[in-house]
């Protein structure tokens, strides 16, 4: 089988509107082959629309995109032969059993009946679904559902796999399983384009990340580059006495040199640490800040140091928090 050495995806200035909603406002992307590429953004940022355009489901209003050198509009069939999509919504038939779903797809890929059955059974075994083979998919748990969706997507051993928010709504264990599957698929040589709302997911899986907001890429780079511009972590504090919060805010601001966010909870504060502006790493900055608070007699009941949330990333990049809207509803609405 031929593996192209050029980029898996090249997109220039993709635009697409649904009625008055501008879902894509000129997206540029370059996804190297053989890697995981993350599209990070809130609901309604345009991630799903971008994926649907690249997966030949929607025509762009403007701009152009190529998948392994094939134009997604004029050479859609060549693109389809090399990729597959696991959407956010059921991408298998819920009324059918797991085995029937995979056999159906295997036959549509051109396998004859015995080969299709063998392929489907092998796939179910690899995904730990052999016991559920003869059960209707609507009776599967959320994690099993996701696994059969992904199994259906790699039946054709695609060169490019689109995963649209693969772990949204999953429990932590199922989420880890999906991550492991993604790693195995990529290790095998498949390029993965993943959309997510979680920075830690993009950080865990992706070699490069594009941050998407209002249909545009507002930042792009490796997770390391992105974090150094945003701050690698954030520190969350809960004080014993809400009266001490203004004082704590002032001290933190002085120690960290970044704006401090006051949470709706009257005893809570959040601040970014480990940004490019400091020569200390995140934990050292946090330790110093805590020391300053203790010195001033401010009692901290609870603190944690974690990765910045998507909201914090957005605040840092755009000065506005992540805005959410239901993209697919807009699309269904406007498509009719």
């Amino acid at each position, binding site marked *: 089988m031929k593996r192209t050495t050029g980029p898996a995806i090249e997109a220039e200035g993709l635009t697409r509107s649904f009625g008055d909603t501008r879902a894509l406002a000129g997206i540029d992307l370059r996804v190297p082959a053989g890697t995981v590429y993350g599209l990070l953004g809130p609901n309604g940022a345009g991630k799903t629309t971008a994926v649907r355009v690249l997966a030949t489901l929607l025509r762009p209003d403007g701009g152009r995109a190529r998948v392994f050198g094939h134009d997604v509009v004029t050479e859609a069939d060549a693109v389809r032969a090399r990729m597959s999509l696991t959407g956010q919504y059921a991408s298998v038939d819920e009324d059918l059993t797991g085995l029937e779903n995979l056999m*159906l797809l295997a036959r549509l890929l051109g396998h*004859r009946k015995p080969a299709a059955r063998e392929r489907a059974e092998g796939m179910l075994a690899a995904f730990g679904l052999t016991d559920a083979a003869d059960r209707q998919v609507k009776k599967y748990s959320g994690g099993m559902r996701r696994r059969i969706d992904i199994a259906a997507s790699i039946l054709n051993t695609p060169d490019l796999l689109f995963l649209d928010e693969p772990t949204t709504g999953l429990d932590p*264990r199922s989420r880890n399983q999906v991550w492991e599957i993604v790693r195995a698929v990529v290790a095998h040589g498949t390029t993965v384009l993943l959309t997510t709302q979680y920075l830690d997911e993009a950080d865990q899986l992706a070699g490069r990340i594009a941050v998407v907001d209002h249909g545009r890429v507002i930042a792009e780079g490796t997770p390391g580059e992105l974090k150094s511009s945003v701050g690698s972590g954030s520190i969350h504090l809960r004080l014993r006495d809400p009266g001490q919060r203004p004082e704590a805010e002032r001290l933190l601001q002085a120690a960290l040199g970044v704006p401090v966010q006051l949470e709706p909870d009257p005893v809570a504060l959040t601040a970014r640490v480990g940004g490019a502006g400091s020569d200390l790493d995140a934990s050292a900055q946090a330790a110093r800040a805590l020391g300053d608070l203790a010195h001033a007699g401010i009692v901290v009941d609870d603190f944690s140091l974690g990765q910045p949330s998507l909201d914090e990333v957005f605040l840092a990049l755009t000065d506005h928090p992540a805005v959410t809207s239901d993209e697919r509803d807009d699309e269904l609405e406007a498509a009719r």
Partner: protein
Amino acid sequence: MSNATTTGRAPSVYVPSAEALSTVLAPGARPPRPNALSASLTFGWRALLKIKHVPEQLFDVTAFPIIMVLMFTYLFGGALADSPRDYLQFFLPGIMVTSVVMITMYTGIGLNTDIEKGVFDRFRTLSIWRPAPLVGMIFGDVLRYVLAAVVILCVGLVLGFRPDGGLPGVLAGIGLLVVFSFAFSWVWTFFGLVLRSEKSVMGVSMMVLFPLTFLSNVFVDPATMPGWLQAFVKVNPITQLVASVRAVMSGTSDPSATMWTLLWSAGFVVVFGTLTMYRYNRR
């Protein structure tokens, strides 16, 4: 009673194994892309599987036609002919057409539901003959049409319908009906793609189907109608279909009606098949 309810056997936790996954991902030779017919038949197989898992959906092709036959035979039979039995001789081919044509609207409703659920996104990203998912879906529906026609025929036979055309005539009649219904289904695939919800598809279907089936020669002889209505009845494809089915079932033939039926069928496939595929590709 002990309240130590067992929570079932502890499910064994699935641990993805890179090895197992890389075996199924091993590229191997990709089989050649399936041809148009085999892809469509595979989608027909999907329709059969859906009937197997949700057999309740056969209710509308069995109970509904039985009710239609019984209701109209005894409602109109006495008034329009000397007896329900005489009326049945005239009426059965017509009610068979009416029931089956009404059932075609479920094609649109089914498609609309399928698309709402998202599974068509997967089908539309496959490298296959583009109309295959829709053609296969209608293949499955054709089975339902045949079933409904046979159910009506059986009820008719029990009530005293005696077709002079015998078995060949009856088979030819059902054949014409199925060809027309297959073609007419493309009207509903179009509306199934264009309209917003299952409910609106249902609404439009009823608005089209009621005048089409009632303003025809199904129930009464059009000679009793006012002239303007006769004009509509005459061009109504249902009238042509009923006339040709009636003719073959009674052992004669009506070449003009049969020709018009086939022309209308071809027209529906060409016009609405094209519109459907245009919408299907554009979304």
